[in-house]
C-alpha cells in the first residue's frame, strides 16, 4: 500500500516545501515577539519572488537574483516601517492593503516585463543520487536553500534566546512601556525586528522561485505567508517548534503533489488535497486553544 519510493518522494518534496515556509516563520516570529503583527509577509514574499525572477532572467545569475530579493526585502521593510511604526497605522488593515498592493504590482510588472519566461534555478545535490541509502536519496534532492534555512534557524535561535536584542524584542512585545521607561528606543527595536522579518520573507520568496522553474507566476505564494502567520501562533513563538510545525505543514502540502502516486491517496482529488493545509491551520488553532499573542501585538505605541 505504502512503499518506500512513495515515502522518499513525499519526504523529499516536503523538505523542499518546508524551506520557504519556515524561513518566513522565523521572520514573523521575531516580528511578533517585538509587538508588530506583520500581515504584509505575503506581499514581501511575492515581491521578493518577482525581483528574483526578474533579475535572474535578465542577468542569468541566481546569486544576483537572490541579492535582488534581499534588496526588495529591505525596501518592503522600509515601507512597512513607515506604515506600522512611523505613522502607527492599524497593522492588520494596512498589512492587508500592502498585500493587495504587492499582488497588483507584481502581477502588472510580470505581464509587462516577463510573462512566462523561465530563469536560472538552484541545482540539487545530485552527487549522492546513486546511493541506496534512503536518507541520502532524500538529501540529494535538496538544494543549497536547505543549508541557508538551517543557518537562519541557528541565527534566529541565538538572537531570540541568547542576545541583548532578543531580550529587548521580547520586552517590546510584552511590556512596551518598560522599554520606554528604561530609556531604550522601542521604535528602533521594533524596526530591527520588522526589517529582519521582511528580509527573511522576501528571501523565502526568492527561494520559492529559485527552487521551482526560476520564473514568476502571479499569486505564486498562494497564502504561504498567511500559513506562516498561523504556524507562528501554533509554535507559540518558539523557533524550534516553528521549524517542526512547518515541516508538518509541508508534509500535508506535499500530498497534492505525491497523492496520485498512491492508490489510497489518489481517491481524493488533488484540488481537495490542496485545501488540506489551510484546513489544518484552522484545526490546529482550535487544538492549541488559548495561545496568547505577546500582549502588545497589533497595538501601535502611543506617543
Amino acid at each position, binding site marked *: 500500500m505504502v512503499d518506500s519510493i512513495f515515502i522518499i518522494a513525499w519526504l523529499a518534496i516536503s523538505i523542499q516545501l518546508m524551506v520557504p515556509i519556515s524561513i518566513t516563520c522565523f521572520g514573523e516570529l521575531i516580528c511578533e515577539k517585538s509587538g508588530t503583527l506583520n*500581515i504584509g509577509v505575503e506581499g514581501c514574499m511575492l515581491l521578493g519572488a518577482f525581483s528574483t525572477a526578474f533579475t535572474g532572467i535578465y542577468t542569468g545569475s541566481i546569486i544576483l537574483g537572490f541579492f535582488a530579493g534581499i534588496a526588495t526585502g529591505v525596501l518592503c521593510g522600509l515601507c512597512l516601517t513607515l506604515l506600522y511604526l512611523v505613522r502607527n497605522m*492599524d497593522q492588520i488593515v494596512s498589512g492587508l492593503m*500592502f498585500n*493587495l498592493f504587492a499582488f497588483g504590482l507584481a*502581477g502588472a510588472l510580470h*505581464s509587462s516585463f516577463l510573462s512566462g519566461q523561465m530563469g536560472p534555478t538552484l541545482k540539487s545535490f545530485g552527487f549522492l543520487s546513486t546511493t541506496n541509502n534512503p536518507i541520502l536519496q532524500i538529501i540529494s534532492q535538496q538544494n543549497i536553500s536547505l543549508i541557508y534555512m538551517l543557518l537562519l534557524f541557528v541565527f534566529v535561535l541565538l538572537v531570540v534566546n541568547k542576545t541583548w536584542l532578543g531580550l529587548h524584542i521580547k520586552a517590546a512585545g510584552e511590556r*512596551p512601556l518598560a522599554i520606554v521607561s528604561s530609556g531604550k528606543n522601542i521604535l528602533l527595536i521594533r524596526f530591527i525586528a520588522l526589517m529582519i522579518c521582511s528580509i527573511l520573507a522576501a528571501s523565502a520568496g526568492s527561494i520559492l522561485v529559485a527552487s521551482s522553474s526560476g520564473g514568476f507566476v502571479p499569486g505564486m505564494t498562494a497564502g504561504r505567508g498567511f500559513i506562516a502567520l498561523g504556524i507562528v501562533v501554533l509554535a507559540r513563538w518558539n523557533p524550534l517548534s516553528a521549524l517542526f510545525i512547518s515541516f508538518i505543514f509541508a508534509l500535508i502540502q506535499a500530498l497534492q503533489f505525491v497523492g496520485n502516486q498512491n492508490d489510497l491517496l489518489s481517491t481524493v*482529488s488533488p*484540488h481537495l488535497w490542496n485545501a488540506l493545509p489551510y484546513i489544518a491551520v484552522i484545526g490546529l488553532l482550535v487544538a492549541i*486553544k488559548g495561545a496568547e499573542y505577546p500582549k502588545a501585538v497589533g497595538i501601535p505605541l502611543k506617543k
Partner: protein
Amino acid sequence: MLFDKKIIFSLVSTICILSLIILSLGVNPLDVLVALLKGSVGNNYFLKQTLMTSGILMLTALAAVIPFSARLWNLGAEGQMILGAATASYLGVFLVDRMPVPLSFGTIILFSFLTGALISSFCGFLKVKFNASEVVSTLMVNFIALSVSAWMIFELIPAKMVQRTISIGKEFRIKDPVSIYLNPVFIVGMLCCLLLYVIMTRTKYGFQTRAMGSNIYASKLSGINPSVITVITFFFAGGFAALAGTLIILARDFSLLLNFSSNYGYLGIGVALVARLNPLAVIPIAFIFAMLSVGSNSLQAITGISPMIGNVFVAMLVLSLMFFKVIRFKYPENING
C-alpha cells in the same frame, strides 16, 4: 469637509506615486486616466459592468463594515463570496426542473447565503470558544474556497472544453432590466446598505455591536455578551459576502469560473475603510472603486498594462488615506502598559 487638508494631501500623494509606477511601466499616466474613464463609464456596456461591480463591492464592503464596527476582523470576504458563488452554481444546475421556479430560486439564494454565513460564523465561534485568531482563520477560508471552486470546476460539474462549471438553468438567470440604471445587483447592494444603516444605528444589536467596538470592557459590564455578538456579526458578514457571490452567478457569469473574482473581497475591505465604516458612505465609495476595478480591465487593450494594476490603485488610495489619518482606528486606553 471634503476638501480637508489631509484628504488633499493623501489624494495628491496617491496620484504622484501611481504616476511614478505607471511611468516606470512605460506608459503615459494621462492615457491611463482616459482609458480608466472610458472603460468604466464610457458606454452602456461598461456602465452596466460598473454598476454591477459596485453592487458586488457594496455587499463585500458590508462584510467588512459589520465586524470592523465591533473591532473583529473578517478578512475572508473573498472566500465567503466564492463559497456562496459555488453553492449557487451547484444548486442552479441541480435544481433545474425539480421544483417550481420561484421556490428553487429562493432556495438558491437562501442556501448560498447560509453557506457563507455559516462558514464565517464558524470562524467567529472558534474565536469565542477556542480563542483561535479570526485573522488567521478567515484568511485561511479564502484559500480553502479557491481549492473547492477549482475542484467543482475540474471534477464535480465541469463544462466541456472550457474552464468553468455547467451553466445554471435559464429560468434562474436574472434578466437585464429595461433601463441600465436599474441594475438589479446595484439595487440589491444599495438596499442592503440602507438596511444595514438602519440596523447599525436604530436597533439594539447595532448599538451593542458598536459598543463592543468602542470599549469591550464597558460593554461587558453593561451586560452585553460579546460571544453572542461575535457569532451574529460574523454570520451576517459572511452572508452578505456570499450574497455578492450568488448575484455574480445569477446575474453576470451564470456559471462558476476559475478566478472569477477580481479580488472583490479585498477591495470590499478597502471600500469599508474609506467609507469609515458608515454603511451609507459605502454606496458612493463602492461606485468609485468599481470604476477603478472595471476600468482597469480596458487598460490591457489600450495601454498594455495588466488589469491587476487596479489592485495597486485601490491599495495605494487606502494606504495613503490611512497614512494621513483620514481613516483612523481608536485603541482602548492603557493597553500599552
